[in-house]
């Protein structure tokens, strides 16, 4: 049973099936983010039900996706353990001896008859091979000298770091998800300081936000000038922009986007300030009107939640939805008891006191004196800690390095036999290059060099007849097949 399971995980056929299945899930998940499934449903109405399920199913967070990844990871590990000893043996202690049958039946071979003694023939062949950077091992068995030559023999090991890197990538992802954190909307208004949380002891103050736009209105610079505090002490200052995050301790801050904020002051009826600060607008929007940015802040000192809605930024779009009809410089506010549901902002809701405020003009709302001081801005940062990053970097290097070694430095091997013959020496060589055209071409170059050194032309056997051989050794001339056809 264990042997069957082991063979299952080592099977290349099953590996192909697993990778293909994973590719299918990835394709399904990718198309989910497009209109392609709906096009299918529009063309074949009977598939609408399946398409609805398709849009609902998050393939990348499904159990089947995780199970397939796990299966492939296990298969990689088992296959690596299975192949490693054989590959290492082939590198360190290759089989040197060959057989006449192999050389005769090889797809490509070269047979020499040389009028020199056996020893100098062996030396010249060795010289020709070493000129092409082959390692040469010879072994005398009876009357025959067996020759084994290889180069880039360590290239085969490149497959191991590549495959192990795939497992490491998964490990890095799991480590990051389990032991890290990511806050995608860390909003800080200009002049405000916000705690990072997550046990970091860090807080961040936005000193200034700098943005600029090209004549077409597209942003060409987004920069947050910030100061980081740790346990109340300033530890770092600098600028965060989109491709230049800032790190300190266990947190990294990434520039994400920008929001506007309303600087508000809440005072008691006697004018004593209870609270003053920014209310970030744009995290929410007015119910029924997406163009009216809204936000709220809980003020425990006053026992209230202050909700603020800004003017409609796109009055041309569905103007009937703009029930507040705020002008520039105005904010609509609502005072609710602390703990009210967020985002439930209704201009017609008369349960809680609400009012339109003009810039700088205090108003009594819900028993408090509330002032809209000015408009300001807030930066939206992402804060993350991903302990899986070092694992990812190592995996990335292993992956690319392994691929480069395997594909750009392929292993080449040549086998041969040399023995004394009447009048001199006989030799026969063949490459291990089945379905490897480049390997055959390299063998052809070796044969050419060997022939020059020995002063003897071989009897050649090449795939597809002599025409292909000519194309390999003299690539600038048209092949005889073409010459015959055109002539």
């Amino acid at each position, binding site marked *: 049973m264990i042997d069957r399971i082991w063979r299952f995980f080592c099977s290349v056929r099953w590996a192909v099936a697993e990778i293909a299945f994973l590719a299918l899930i990835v394709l399904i998940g990718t198309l989910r983010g497009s209109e392609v499934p709906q096009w299918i449903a529009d063309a074949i109405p009977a598939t609408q039900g399946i398409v609805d399920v398709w849009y609902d199913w998050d393939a990348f967070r499904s159990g089947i996706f995780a199970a397939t990844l796990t299966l492939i990871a296990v298969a990689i590990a088992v296959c690596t353990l299975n192949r490693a000893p054989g590959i290492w043996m082939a590198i360190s202690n290759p089989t040197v001896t060959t057989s006449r049958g192999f050389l005769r039946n090889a797809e490509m071979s070269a047979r020499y008859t040389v009028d020199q003694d056996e020893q100098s023939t062996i030396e010249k062949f060795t010289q020709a091979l070493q000129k092409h950077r082959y390692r040469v091992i010879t072994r005398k068995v009876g009357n025959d000298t067996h020759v084994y030559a290889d180069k880039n023999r360590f290239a085969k090991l490149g497959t191991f770091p590549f495959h192990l890197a795939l497992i490491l990538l998964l490990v890095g992802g799991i480590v990051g998800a389990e032991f890290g954190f990511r806050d995608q909307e860390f909003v800080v208004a200009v002049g405000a300081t916000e705690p990072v949380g997550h046990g970091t002891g860090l807080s961040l103050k936005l000193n200034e936000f700098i943005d600029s736009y090209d004549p077409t209105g597209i942003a060409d610079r987004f920069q947050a000038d910030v100061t980081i505090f740790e346990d109340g002490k300033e530890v770092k200052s600098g600028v965060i922009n989109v*491709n*230049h995050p800032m790190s300190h301790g266990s947190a990294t801050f990434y520039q994400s986007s920008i929001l506007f904020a309303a600087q508000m002051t809440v005072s008691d009826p006697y004018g004593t300030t209870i609270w003053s600060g920014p209310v970030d607008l744009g995290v929410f929007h007015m119910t029924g009107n997406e163009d009216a940015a809204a936000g709220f802040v809980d003020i425990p000192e006053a026992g209230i939640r202050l909700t603020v809605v800004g003017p409609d930024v796109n009055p041309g779009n569905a103007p009937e939805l703009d029930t507040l009809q705020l002008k520039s410089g105005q904010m609509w506010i609502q005072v609710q008891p602390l703990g009210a549901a967020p985002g439930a902002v209704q201009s017609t809701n008369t349960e809680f006191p609400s009012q339109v405020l003009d810039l700088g003009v205090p108003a009594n709302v819900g028993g408090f004196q509330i002032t809209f001081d000015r408009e300001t801005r807030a930066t939206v940062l992402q804060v993350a800690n991903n302990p899986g990053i070092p694992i990812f970097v190592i995996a990335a290097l292993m992956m690319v390095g392994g691929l480069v070694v395997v594909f750009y430095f392929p292993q080449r091997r040549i086998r041969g036999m040399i023995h004394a013959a009447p009048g001199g020496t006989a030799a026969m060589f063949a490459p291990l290059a089945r379905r490897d055209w480049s390997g055959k071409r390299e063998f052809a170059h070796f044969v050419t060099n060997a022939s020059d050194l020995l002063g003897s032309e071989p009897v050649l056997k090449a795939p597809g007849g002599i025409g292909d051989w000519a194309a390999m050794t003299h690539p600038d001339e048209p092949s005889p097949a073409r010459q015959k056809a055109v002539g």
Partner: protein
Amino acid sequence: MEGLVKLSFYCFASASFSLAAAMLCYIAFTVGRVRLQHAIMTTPEGTTISASRAEFSPAPESFGGFGTMLAWFGVVMAFFAVLTRTIAAGHLPISNMFEFSLTFVFAISAIYVVFERVYKTRHLGAIVMAIAFGMTLYMWMLPADMREVNPLIPALQAKPIMTVHVSSAILAYATFSVSFAAAVLYLIKINRNVSWLPGADMLDEIGFRAVTVGFPLLSLVLILGSVWANDAWGTYWSWDPKETAALFTWLVYAVYLHTRTLRGWRGKRSAYILLFGFAAVIFTYYGNYFFGGLHAYGGV
């Protein structure tokens, strides 16, 4: 700067005409000459029977030679188009689909002429140049304002990594175009046994070698994209559709490389996988038109 942008466009126009002409020459070279043979026979009863058949023979070498010359001219013009636009923009032209396609046209034609030189075969040009020409047609159809050089939006202001990430993608897709062409010719060779096409072994080899060049490059694209995503978006993988489409393409070619070791999966089946792989490349390349996500900027 405006002058350089105009010069870049004129070089692109020259390249597109040259590649079109190269494509025609290569197609003529690959398809060969067609002779219609008529046979007329009169029966003893006086009835006349006629029959005709098409006889194919190789085209003259000169067609291939002209194709090569025109392809090289197209490569040089495309290179100057990319160079002048780079100087004008201050960065490699890869920030919108017009620029990306311009660089891709250069890459695909350059990669093709390298393979032609290494393998001494011109027949792949019929397909690869058709892809390059098709790409130039697509560029002609893009809105004219995409030809203008605009400042990079903040998300793209990461020149070193953007250059290497996008360049790797372009080179990977270009080499997969060559593997696609090799697969098509392989299937024609196997099914029709056209004598003047390269041997099936060589076509199989070219397809494999192209993938061995492109697959590491595509791996680099995914890796560098993840590194850049971590700096720009705070996470190195966010299941963005363009990311997952590239991953799908990578998996298809991973299947191909594994099937190379399977008996019975070489030859025809491998060729079909290469065709499917190139379809995945096209799907990823034009993905911006199908899905939004974090890669949907730069106009298109």
